[in-house]
């Protein structure tokens, strides 16, 4: 029922009993998922959740505040290196280390947000691009960061590493639970933030910054805040990513990664948390898993493999990965500018009004 009895119903998390029920079902499903899935898929799920966190954060900046960032791989790298190095050198527990690293990323976000006060559109894109590339190269040249050879993430220790209070979380399945809890918390936090005062201020800057200012929104504070929050999310995602993959080097965090992040939120739907989640899921799946499954398809798989062997320099379907990704991106942007979120809204409308 759409009848509202009090104002709290406008902002509360679960707008109806049905939504609460299905959210609970989804949560239980997610918590029991490792029982039904083979471990490679758990690894993939971990990557997906890391990307969900990042996409939700990036969407706060791009989708809600209307700023652009081509440097999010930089914040992602700060999170990954920061968390691992803090744990290795300062012997802090995982939770403290990842929060600290994310705060460092947020600080860099704040710094990058300052030029955003004067730059717009393509100019801001170039400034953030510069940041992303710089971070990658600084990390590559500096010995503390393992240089070009990269570093191996330390064990994911919930207690104090190397002491009697050490509690190591090992294996994809256990890491899955850690990431799942953090993802759920951060997604809910983002949703709440966007529903309240700060989210509205972000959205007002996106739609009309002059009107926003005249209504009392301080552009300096809120633009830099948006960058900082977004970078915080990227930092957390990076910190988790380190433990998922176990090993990373500076070139993991290249420009293409920043662009893939933007693809996720554009395909998913700008300015919607649900969209960011769906986009991150779809694009990660396409990147990591789709082509492996295509190879096993009857007829088509064989045909594509043959084409690849004959005309491409590399054998196997990797050749088609970027082509497929590109086609799907173009198709979604042309046919559904609101992204997957738009499709979702139309489906919801359809079921609500069914059978009419």
């Amino acid at each position, binding site marked *: 029922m759409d009848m509202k009895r009090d104002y709290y119903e406008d902002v509360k998390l679960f707008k109806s009993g049905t939504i609460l029920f299905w959210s609970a079902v989804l949560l239980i499903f997610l918590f029991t998922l490792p029982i039904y899935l083979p471990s490679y898929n758990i690894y993939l799920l971990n990557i997906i959740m890391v990307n969900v966190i990042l996409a939700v954060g990036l969407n706060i900046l791009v989708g809600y505040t209307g700023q652009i960032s081509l440097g999010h791989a930089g914040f992602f790298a700060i999170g990954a290196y920061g968390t691992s190095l803090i744990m290795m050198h300062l012997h802090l527990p995982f939770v403290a280390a990842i929060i600290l690293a994310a705060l460092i990323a947020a600080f860099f976000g704040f710094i990058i947000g300052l030029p955003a006060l004067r730059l717009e559109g393509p100019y801001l894109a170039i400034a953030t691009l510069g940041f992303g590339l710089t971070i990658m190269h600084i990390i590559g040249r500096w010995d503390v960061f393992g240089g070009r050879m990269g570093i191996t993430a330390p064990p994911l220790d919930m207690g104090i590493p190397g002491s009697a209070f050490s509690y190591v979380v090992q294996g994809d399945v256990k890491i899955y639970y850690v990431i799942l809890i953090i993802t759920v918390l951060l997604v809910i936090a983002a949703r709440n933030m966007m529903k309240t005062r700060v989210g509205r201020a972000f959205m007002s800057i996106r739609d009309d910054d002059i009107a926003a200012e005249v209504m*009392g929104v301080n552009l300096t504070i809120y633009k830099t805040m948006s960058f900082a929050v977004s970078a915080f999310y990227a930092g957390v995602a990076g910190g988790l990513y380190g433990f998922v993959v176990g090993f990373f080097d500076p070139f993991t965090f290249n420009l293409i990664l920043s662009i893939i992040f933007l693809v996720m939120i554009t395909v998913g739907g700008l300015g919607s948390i649900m969209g960011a989640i769906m986009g991150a899921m779809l694009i990660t799946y396409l990147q990591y898993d789709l082509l492996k499954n295509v190879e096993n398809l009857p007829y088509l798989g064989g045909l594509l493999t043959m084409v690849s062997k004959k005309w491409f320099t590399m054998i196997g379907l990797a050749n088609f990965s970027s082509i497929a990704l590109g086609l799907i991106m173009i198709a979604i942007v042309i046919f559904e500018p609101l992204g997957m979120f738009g499709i979702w809204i139309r489906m919801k409308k359809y079921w609500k009004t069914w059978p009419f």
Partner: protein
Amino acid sequence: MAHFKVENLSISFGGIKAVNNVSFEVEENKIFSIIGPNGSGKTTIFNMISGIYKPNEGTIFLENENLVGMRPDTIALRGVARTFQNIQLFGNATVMDNLMLGRHIHMKTGILSGAFMWGRHSYAAKEEIRHREIIEHIIDFLDLQSLRDLFVSSLPYGKRKLVELGRALALQPKVLLLDEPSAGMNTEEKDDLRIWIKDIQEDYKVTILLIEHDMNMVMGISDRILAINQGMKIVEGTPKEVQRNPEVIAAYLGEEE
């Protein structure tokens, strides 16, 4: 000292004096209209009052405080709200969200308290509820009930004008600047708007500065009128005085041969 006072206000854009040495005073809780032909500098005066333009010279006093040099958001904090000639709403947000943004300066929820809105008794939820109640009065007042959850970009022009007026009211300003509120409205809507502006003056106890081309409305509701032409003051006075002024007639109708 007057409640709201503008003195010797001047601004030029590349050698053209858009506003030249304009002064006026507005008493508290009065409706003060600014009229003039197109391009005479009316909106420019509003832009200087709300801080979008920095005047080259002059002062703008609200309750003994000079607003010149302040950022637009600080001026909003001091109690100045406005609407725009070409409607500047937040198109991809609902009517409710647009109005709630008017409450921005009165609210305190930040990133953390917003993110931790767990349940009805959290700080952020309580604050949301309190301010949504205030907004509901404005929605009732302007008859926007059926539109509250619609996206602004889907609304007809006249309704958007009202939402913008509502957003400015939500800020609970001391001074309300209305830039051609009746533009694009039909006769019926204009009549409603006239009543609303009168009601706003009485119920909300605000000082209203009005730019308007509809002379019926201007002459009907204004306490005082300022007529300007080419950035300069022609005359200021009661509606009757302004109507009779030969220079005003000349500016509007052209000079008699």
